[in-house]
C-alpha cells in the first residue's frame, strides 16, 4: 500500500507531466476510436481491424507514458514496460491471425455447401 499509490503527483516537473498527459490522451483517443470501429463497422472482416489500432499504438502510448511517469517519480530508469511491449507484439498478431483464419474457413465451408465450385483466394462479404 505504501508503494506507488502514495506517491505525490506534484513532484513531477511540468516538462515530464506534459508529455505523459499528452501520451495518455492520445492513447485514450486511439483506444476509443478502435472500440468505435469494433462497434460500428458493418461486417466481421472489417471489425477485426478496429482493435488492431489500439493493440499496437494505444498500448504503446500507455506504456511509454508509464515508463516516463515511473522513471520520473522513482528517479531511476524504469524500463520493464518494454517487456509488456515485447509480449504484446508477440501474442496479439497470433490471436488476430487465428481469429481471421477461423472466419475464413467458416465462410469457405459455408460457400462449399452452397455451390461446388473451387473457391479461389476468397472474396466474401456481401452478407452481414
Amino acid at each position: 500500500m505504501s508503494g506507488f499509490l502514495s506517491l505525490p503527483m506534484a513532484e513531477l516537473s511540468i516538462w515530464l507531466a506534459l508529455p505523459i498527459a499528452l501520451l495518455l490522451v492520445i492513447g485514450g483517443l486511439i483506444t476509443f476510436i478502435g472500440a468505435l470501429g469494433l462497434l460500428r463497422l458493418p461486417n466481421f472482416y472489417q471489425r477485426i481491424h478496429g482493435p488492431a489500432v489500439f493493440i499496437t499504438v494505444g498500448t504503446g502510448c500507455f506504456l511509454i507514458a508509464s515508463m516516463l511517469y515511473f522513471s520520473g517519480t522513482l528517479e531511476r530508469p524504469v524500463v520493464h514496460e518494454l517487456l509488456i511491449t515485447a509480449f504484446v507484439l508477440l501474442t496479439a498478431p497470433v490471436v488476430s491471425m487465428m481469429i481471421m483464419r477461423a472466419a475464413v474457413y467458416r465462410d469457405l465451408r459455408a460457400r462449399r455447401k452452397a455451390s461446388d465450385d473451387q473457391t479461389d483466394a476468397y472474396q466474401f462479404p456481401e452478407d452481414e
Partner: protein
Amino acid sequence: MRRWLPTPLISLSLLGLWLMLNQTLHPAHLLLGAVIAIAIPLLVAPLRPTPVRVSRPLTVIRLTISSLIEILRSCFNVCTLILFRSRGLNTQFIRIPLDLRDPHGLAVLACIINSTPGTVWVEIIPGTNDLALHVFDLHDANWWVNMIKTKLEQPLIEIFEQEKA
C-alpha cells in the same frame, strides 16, 4: 562455448528478460539470470525444429524503424477511416507471391503485418507460396504487393536467408 551456449542470442535475451523482470543489476540476479540463460536453451533445444541464424544487425534496426513508422502511419489512416467513412470501405483479400521461405522470417513477417493496423495475415495458401492478406481499405493492390515485397520481405530475406541474399 558452442556446447554451453548454442544460441547466444536467445541466452542474451533471457538474461535481459530476467534482469528486467527483477528490475535490478545486482550480482546475485546476474548469476541467477546467467544460470537461466544457459539452462533454458539447453532444455528446450529438442523442441526447436530448425536453428535460427540472424545476421545483419543494421538491417534489423532499419526494418524495426521503418515498420514502426509504417505502424504509426497506418494507425492514423485506419483511425480517420473509422471516424469519417466507415461505410463504403473497399475491404479486400489480396494475394501476394512471397519469395521468403524461412519459417522464422515468415513468422516475423506475420507479426509485423498483423501489428500494422489495416492489414491482417490470413494464411499462406496451401500448395502455393502466395500469402493471402486482408486489407482494410484497398486502393491499389499493386501498391501493397510492392510495399510488402520491398519494405518488409527484402530485409527479412537479408536477415534470415543469408545464402539467398
